[in-house]
């Protein structure tokens, strides 16, 4: 009961937030929602199933380009958004094939290679992608008379999708799929011994993770109204990795905490881009050295400490 109250208050605050934010801050919070969705996808692939993906920016980009290019063809946003996810997911399943044979550093390198190749395709195949300058003039959707064209309205659309993504990830993690992901992540051999097809579930882990990234991309393109290959480089994949590692791999809260820190941190601290990248790179090392569970354990400790004083909660 208290839990519902807590989340109700959080959502109410988030709904009221745009009234108090300036244009730019509103954009940063909106961007945080988009990145949260992508990071949730990576968390399913890497955090739960333990399959390294350093090409989530590719999946993200495929979703974004699907949206931008099909919108230009006059398709409806509501039809393209699932397609963004499906194209991202299909590509993810293809990328997942090497994971059947290779893991850890091999898989990391292979997925870096995938990201480099897709980046080159985005830059070079300008007949399709618009080349280095990308696609501009991307429109925002509407439902009947309700238009999401303004930054203010589009914020709410992103908020809804972000909440849906979080709920979907909770559902997946607790489903048969999620248990299979975790089993493979913990010990592949033992999982196979228990009749879990590592073939199916590894591909599925990539496909589902990439689906989230694709949907994120589909929401990203109308947010910026402009996309270019620079937004989908290997370095962006690295930022997604930083998000879930700092936040906490294999935890629902992980990608949310990570996206908030990585996207909003630089704005709050008013740092130059390179300066915050130093800080995050250092955090990646420090988290691996001293706090492998990520910042989510700080939350866990708080949660344990508070009910002890206020009275039991769960």
């Amino acid at each position: 009961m208290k839990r519902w109250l807590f989340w109700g208050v959080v959502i109410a605050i988030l709904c009221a937030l745009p009234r108090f934010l300036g244009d730019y801050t509103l954009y940063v919070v909106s961007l945080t929602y988009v990145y949260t969705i992508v990071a949730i996808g990576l968390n399913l692939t890497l955090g739960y199933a333990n399959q390294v993906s350093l090409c989530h920016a590719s999946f993200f980009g495929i979703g974004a380009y699907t949206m931008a290019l099909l919108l230009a063809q006059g398709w409806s946003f509501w039809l393209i958004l699932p397609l963004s996810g499906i194209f991202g997911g299909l590509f993810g399943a293809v990328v997942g094939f090497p994971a059947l044979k290779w893991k850890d550093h091999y898989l990391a390198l292979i997925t870096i290679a995938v990201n480099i190749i897709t980046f080159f395709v985005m830059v070079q195949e300008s007949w399709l992608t618009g080349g280095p300058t990308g696609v501009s003039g991307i429109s925002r959707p509407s439902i009947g008379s309700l238009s999401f064209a303004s930054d203010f309205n589009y914020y709410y659309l992103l908020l809804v999708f972000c909440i849906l993504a979080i709920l979907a990830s909770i559902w997946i993690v607790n489903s048969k799929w999620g248990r299979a992901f975790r089993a493979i992540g913990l010990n592949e051999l033992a999982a196979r011994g228990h009749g879990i097809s590592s073939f199916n579930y590894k591909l599925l882990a990539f496909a589902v993770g990439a689906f989230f990234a694709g949907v994120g991309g589909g929401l990203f393109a109308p947010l910026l109204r402009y996309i270019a290959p620079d937004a989908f480089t290997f370095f962006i994949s690295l930022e997604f990795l930083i998000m879930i590692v700092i936040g906490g791999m294999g935890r629902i809260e992980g990608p949310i905490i990570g996206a908030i820190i990585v996207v909003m941190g630089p704005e709050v601290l008013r740092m130059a881009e390179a300066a915050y990248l130093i800080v995050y790179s250092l955090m990646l090392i420090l988290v691996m050295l001293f706090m492998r569970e990520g910042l989510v354990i700080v939350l866990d400790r708080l949660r344990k400490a508070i009910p002890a004083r206020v009275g039991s909660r769960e």
Partner: protein
Amino acid sequence: MADFIQLLIGGVSMGILYGVVAIGFVLLWQTSQTINFAQGEFVMVPMFLMVALHIVLKIPFWPAFILMLVGSAILGYLFERLMVRKLLPGGVLVIVIATLGLSGFLRYGIQIAWTPQTLFFPPLFSTEPIRLSGITFSPEDIWNIVFISVIIVVLHLCIKRTKLGMAMQAVAQGRETAELMGINVRHIIILVFVLNSVLAGTAALFAAPIFFVRYDIGIFLGVKAFVAAIIGGFNQIRGALVGGLTVGLAETFAAAYITTAYRDAFVMILLFIVLLIKPEGMVGIKEEAY
């Protein structure tokens, strides 16, 4: 034909550089199961060190070079001491993530602390092209090939013939057994880390005039060296060299004869082809523990 030979020389000179960096990679993996995703930055940092010592502080070439190698060695030592030692028990993935962090830290650190711009480094050798019966080539490439080949041969002999080298091989084959034979495994591992970063520092000297000195040069160098190690065979020094040459030649010829647009992507495609056809690498030996 003249074109072909010119490209061949250019490709080999490039490839042998990748090869040296890849050899360091393979040595680290063999002796301590460390994968260094910051390997490219271990070349980039000495490049800047060399610029700082030789061009900014105007220290003469040889003392500057030796100081740069000392700097590289310290980097390698600290890498083992402060990071790898604590991370190894956590498994390969932990090392992968942490070294990705290290690569970012060094990359953006240099960008902020020094410059985001490209610095030039004077060529080590004459760049006056030599013409020989219709073939034009730069002496720079030839000298690079000669010097790096000598370094690799010396390294090879050290590993095969000296007591220390044999101790390294023993550690690579089996840590416990090596320990029982009275080898100080800790010291050997530190030695390999220092050796790796010194090799990378040497590669930096030759790479600086060719690639120029830039904070983000390490990414492509590191990825290509890693690809070289994999397509050559991860468990062999010979493999790293073959892989490096393959990468250098493939990208040079592909850029010349197919298209320059995908120059850096060709290597990645090559990686997929080798992984599909011969996953243990071109001269590698099959092993269970991937």
